[in-house]
């Protein structure tokens, strides 16, 4: 926290509203007047009912979407255009299907001007780090969902971005794979603590991973309604930490806020829990 006071936050969303113009006329006010700061080295998880605007908020931080009002500051500088300091792990599959796992990872270094040979060597290292040494020559369609997510993780991390934006990166995976991936992520993150904005619909996962859990309200005009510090020690093991009494206390506190929002989202005819 002292660090956060000294240096400007890695990400600061200030009074961000987003409204989408609809094709049939009118507009949909997805997110309204939201403020969110992520300090350098801080791991922030965002939870909220489905369709509340979590991905939208990440897109603003990534510079892929310009907010209707407000602004995003990256390390104290107002963002205009793409956020070059951020790596983004998308909710959907984003690997290039025509490139092998190795090429998908290596190509991330091309914009940096890294020579092809050096890029390939580093891509191999990164694929080894995410446990995919045996799969370097596979095309995405020949990999499982979890393996694809790991390739995408390597592709994002090889550029060594100062900010990591992750949108339900473990969404489609089974419980065991989620744990493996979660521990892998914490292990990689602990080496050189990047600022992380991590969207998930799994509250337990959010608590297990993050320093802070931010709760968004149900849309439309969603905003941030809760901000909970997670005072659990590190390093953590995703599976073991869930049995700690502190974990349950935090879970209970956050759920009290989140449940109301999820129920409101249901009442509006939406689906999933958060």
């Amino acid at each position: 926290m002292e660090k956060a006071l000294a240096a400007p936050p890695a990400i600061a969303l200030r009074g961000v509203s987003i409204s989408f113009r609809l094709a049939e006329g009118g507009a949909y006010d997805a997110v309204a007047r939201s403020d969110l700061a992520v300090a350098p080295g801080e791991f922030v998880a965002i939870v909220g009912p489905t369709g509340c605007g979590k991905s939208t908020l990440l897109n603003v931080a990534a510079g892929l979407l310009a907010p209707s009002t407000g602004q995003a500051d990256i390390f104290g500088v107002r963002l205009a255009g793409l956020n070059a300091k951020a790596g983004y792990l998308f909710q959907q599959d984003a690997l290039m299907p025509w490139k092998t796992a190795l090429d998908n990872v290596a190509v991330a270094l091309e914009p940096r001007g890294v020579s092809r040979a050096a890029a390939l060597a580093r891509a191999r290292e990164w694929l080894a780090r995410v446990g995919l040494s045996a799969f370097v020559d596979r095309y995405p369609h020949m990999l499982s969902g979890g393996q694809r997510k790991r390739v995408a993780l390597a592709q994002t991390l090889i550029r060594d971005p100062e900010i990591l934006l992750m949108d339900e990166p473990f969404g489609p995976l089974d419980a065991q794979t989620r744990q493996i991936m979660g521990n892998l992520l914490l292990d990689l993150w602990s080496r050189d603590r990047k600022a992380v904005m991590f969207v998930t619909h799994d509250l337990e996962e959010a608590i297990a991973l993050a320093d802070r859990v931010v709760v968004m309200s149900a849309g439309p005009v969603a905003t941030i309604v809760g901000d909970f510090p997670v005072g659990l020690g590190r390093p953590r093991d995703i599976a073991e930490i869930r049995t700690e009494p502190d974990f349950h206390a935090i879970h209970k506190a956050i759920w009290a806020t989140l449940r109301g929002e999820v129920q409101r989202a249901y009442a509006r005819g939406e689906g999933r829990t958060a």
Partner: protein
Amino acid sequence: MKRPTLLALQLAVGLVMLLVWHVLTTVPIGGRKLLDPFFFSTPLDVLARVWKDFYAGTIWRHLGITLLETVLAFVFGSVGGIVFGFVFARGELIAAVFDPYIKAANALPRVVLAPIFALWFGLGIWSKVALGFTLVFFIVFFNVYQGVREVSPTILANARMLGMNERQLLRHVYWPAALTWMFSSLHTAVGFALVGAVVGEYLGSAAGLGYKIHEAESVFDVTGVFAGMMILAVFVIVIDAVVTAIEKRLLVWRPGTQSTTTQG
């Protein structure tokens, strides 16, 4: 199904068709032949003529010319289609302005162009290449246009987040995406290049398979016509096999092109 079994079945179908043709044209049924050999020739005559053409070596020149025209029409048509497909897909305004003209040009029956092309480019190979070009160009153009327009927005956003500039996006995202679409139409495009060549030859030339068929037709040499068609048919199958082989090599990344998939 196993490959040899499939091949055997395919051959069997061909043989049965030849046999039926043979019986109907040579064996009298109920006192008369059902198909008059003057109009339908007979398989043995046709095969003998094919053999003769190859044995005498006269056919090679015609095959070579048709092949050359096909390849040229395909290459020019593809290059043109790719370039224009890219330009139109990336430039909203150009696409919108030219849209009715493209549609009109594509709707034009190409046969009416053949005499004009003969006038412009002479009776040599170039009028046939031009005819094939007009066919291939539009197929490739529409597919590349579609391919570039329909690149997954997520893949594009991801590539941009990786820091790619316009040139790198073109190379790593747009181009491969357009190629997939182009390859999905490759068989059709090659087929149309050949159609353009043969039709062009048929309507006016002094060489090529189309010319051979036309020449036989003008003297009511039905055997010659059938022999020409048979050679053309085999020619198409060979070209198609070559295209399939190229496609297999270039699209290894596509699901379904390889039999092994892994669940992990």
